[in-house]
């Protein structure tokens, strides 16, 4: 199953559902369903439940990047975390689960991303436990194969947070 801007119509993702053709990151972020600094992935593929592959092209025009930094544009490390959490939330939403980030368990950055780079993120997404918590593990790599980050997050279903 491929989840992209045209098929995420009713999923909880910052991606625009209404104007997918203008869907370049940051340029058109209308229709976000939750606050987010940028649209942190361009496409999301969910080959089977519990896995997902997100691709993000790094573009200097993305919101916030002009200040990071004026002398040298670098995709902020925290935006790589944003990519993982947005991709995880979209993949979970496609399966009917509405979850929010509760814990960045561990993150290690090992490669720099600059405009023109393409980051591919491979996610393993767990299932909610009795407490509604689930673990997401992700590895991010650049088009030249270099590893950029290893990230483990914990998300919790909104339903569990409300009860």
């Amino acid at each position, binding site marked *: 199953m491929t989840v992209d801007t045209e098929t995420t119509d009713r999923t909880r993702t910052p991606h625009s559902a209404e104007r997918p053709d203008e869907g370049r990151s940051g340029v058109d972020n209308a229709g*976000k*369903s939750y606050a987010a600094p940028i649209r942190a992935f361009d496409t999301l593929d969910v080959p089977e439940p519990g896995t997902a592959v997100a691709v993000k092209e790094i573009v200097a025009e993305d919101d916030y990047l002009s200040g990071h930094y004026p002398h040298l544009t670098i995709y902020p490390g925290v935006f790589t975390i*944003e990519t993982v959490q947005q991709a995880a939330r979209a993949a979970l939403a496609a399966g009917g689960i509405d979850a*929010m980030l509760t814990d960045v368990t561990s993150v290690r950055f090992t*490669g720099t991303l600059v405009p023109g780079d393409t980051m591919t993120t491979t996610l393993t997404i767990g299932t909610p436990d009795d407490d509604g918590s689930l673990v997401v593990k992700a590895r991010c790599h650049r088009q030249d194969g270099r590893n950029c980050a290893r990230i483990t997050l914990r998300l919790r279903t909104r339903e569990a947070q409300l009860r």
Partner: protein
Amino acid sequence: MTVETPDTTVHTTQAPLEHADLKRILAHRHPILQLDRVVEFEPGRRIVAIKAVTGTEPCYGGLSDDAVHADHAYPASLLMESMGQASAALWLHSAILAGEQPRGTLVFGSAREFTIEGAAYPGDVLRHIVELDSTKGDNAFMHGETWAGDRRIVTADSMLVALRDDMTLT
């Protein structure tokens, strides 16, 4: 008509580091300079930095009218960036006060157990309290907490920030 002269006393009391000072310490600029002011500073040990969250920030742009209150939670990535910048300001300003001249581009190296206990919303003022654990060359290890008013919303067990030479960034 009587026009009262406004009492400007409180406005002229400078915090340890104002926004302009932060721009001399950090390379981050609008709109990703995620700190407004440093209100307490103990060189080499501890910093208390604040950041006001407002609905005019880019992260709230384009948010659907269907978004409920919880959807307006300040993004975790920006909370983390803000605390990371408080960490960097503690480390770099301490180094400058010690007569050093830190050089290089600031990067986030790693973090462990950044736990989000609560949420911040437009109108909240974030208060980061960060302590320096150790420095090793161009690397600094910190831990900290973030408060929104009287609610602690984040605890961070360990953060590594580093300076890297632009030429060796890979």
